[in-house]
């Protein structure tokens, strides 16, 4: 390793050096924390096993702490314990409470006149907060793989694009629409 340092400036040299040094050891250093095991096949198998659930490791620990029975079951299975995060019941009911309260709020706020657009905006903001609550907690997106979140956000992005473009186009043609309407009223 000490030989590596002076040669690090030259890319070619480092590459060959890296190739020559056994990769398992260096990989294990940052993928698996348990580096005491020396037996290569065992280590390799551990590497491969822990490769998939690795991104969820903090969550898994989380679920272990909170739900001992789940952990016990998993240990019984002998591999891949805690496929996903488990929701605490208190959190589930908290989210439901918030959702119901927001539903009451969105009905109640219609009694207040905030202007046609104002009421619509308030209603949409409340609906979006509710949607975020459902997505974050009920749909587990907070603990899910980030790729799933990205997928979902992509659909939302395209929804916004779709609505935005259409609305902008409609607004652009407002004058023509007004003219057409006036013409129709005149004829009628």
């Amino acid at each position, binding site marked *: 390793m000490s030989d590596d340092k002076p040669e690090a400036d030259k890319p070619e040299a480092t590459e060959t050096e890296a190739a020559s040094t056994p990769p398992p050891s260096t990989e294990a250093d940052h993928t698996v924390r348990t580096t005491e095991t020396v037996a290569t096949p*065992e280590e390799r198998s551990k590497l491969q096993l822990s490769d998939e659930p690795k991104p969820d490791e903090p969550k898994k620990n989380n679920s272990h702490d909170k739900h001992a029975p789940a952990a016990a079951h998993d240990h019984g299975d002998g591999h891949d314990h805690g496929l*996903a995060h488990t929701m605490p019941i208190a959190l589930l009911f908290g989210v439901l409470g918030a959702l119901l309260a927001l539903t009451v709020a969105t009905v109640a706020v219609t009694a207040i006149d905030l202007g046609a657009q104002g009421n619509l905006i308030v*209603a949409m903001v409340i609906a979006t907060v509710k949607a975020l609550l459902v997505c974050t907690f009920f749909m587990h997106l907070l603990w899910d793989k980030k790729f799933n979140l990205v997928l979902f956000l992509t659909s939302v992005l395209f929804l916004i694009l779709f609505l935005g473009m259409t609305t902008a186009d409609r607004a652009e043609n407002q004058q023509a629409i007004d003219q057409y309407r006036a013409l129709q009223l005149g004829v009628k």
Partner: protein
Amino acid sequence: MAEPSTETRGSAKPASAPPPPHTDHGHDDHGHGHEAHDPIHAANPHLAHHFDTPQQQFDAGKLGIWLFLLTEVLFFSGLFCAYTVYRAMHPEVFVYAHYFLDTKLGAVNTCVLLISSLTAAWAVRNAQLAEKKALMLNIVITIACAFTFMSVKYVEYAHKYHDGLLPGKAFQPKEQIWELKSFRDKHPEAAEYAEKLAKLDEKKATPPAAAPAEAGKTAPAEAGKAEPAEAERIERPTEEELEPLLAAGLVGPRSLDPSAHISRPRMAHVFFGIYFFMTGLHGFHVLIGIGIWVWMLVKASKGHFGPAYFGPVDFTALYWHLVDLIWIYLFPLLYLIH
């Protein structure tokens, strides 16, 4: 410790070895024979042969359901787009039509769906912890909520059908807007004046032709012979009298029409087209959801779900939450128009 793996190493079929989920081998089993996937399959009767680990199977399923939900969002986005454009172009139609919708029923349905979302999320937890009874109970409650939702929808639809509030040519409302309680509560003055005008129009309309007295429609101008002065006065309200009518959206601005014509917006039927399509498609999703939940209930009753296999419940719940999510937007957009 190593016995179960060596036994099943040769066979690729997971069905050949259905051990109970609580086998004795523990963490040490990570160590041996990873290249042959059999021990994992042997320990997981629900692990399909084309997946290496339960984690892989679960993640693949989850990715799949999220992709499906993505298409669902885009599917509904077309209807939301139609709604947006139509509302931007004809706001008066939405103000007019929303009086015909029962906010209470809509709110009740919102709450019912939210509660079913809770039981769905709870069911996932039950499946993860292999709590069979609680899982089945939560699925049953979810299904019950779904049926409640559909029952309320049925009541609403039946009411609309009865009142002639249907899309397109079928749109023939039996009640005038000022006869609705929701409208009267909000605009009592306008409702009163509108009634006067309607009666006047009725009088004018009946003598010449026995045409059905469509109060909202324009009556022939020369027909008002009963009390011409009175009729004239009512037809040409003062600015003060006109104000509530204008505020309630019953008449257009005076510049367009000097006499007060109470009329429903010309395109009102399109609102009901949008209403039935959006709620109908959503209701269809709820029906499909009921079917899938029943399937999950059957699987749960057989004790299929546990810490290593709960994907189906999770994915069904995700679908269910999306259905809920869409309703969260539909409710204010259709029922709570200001």
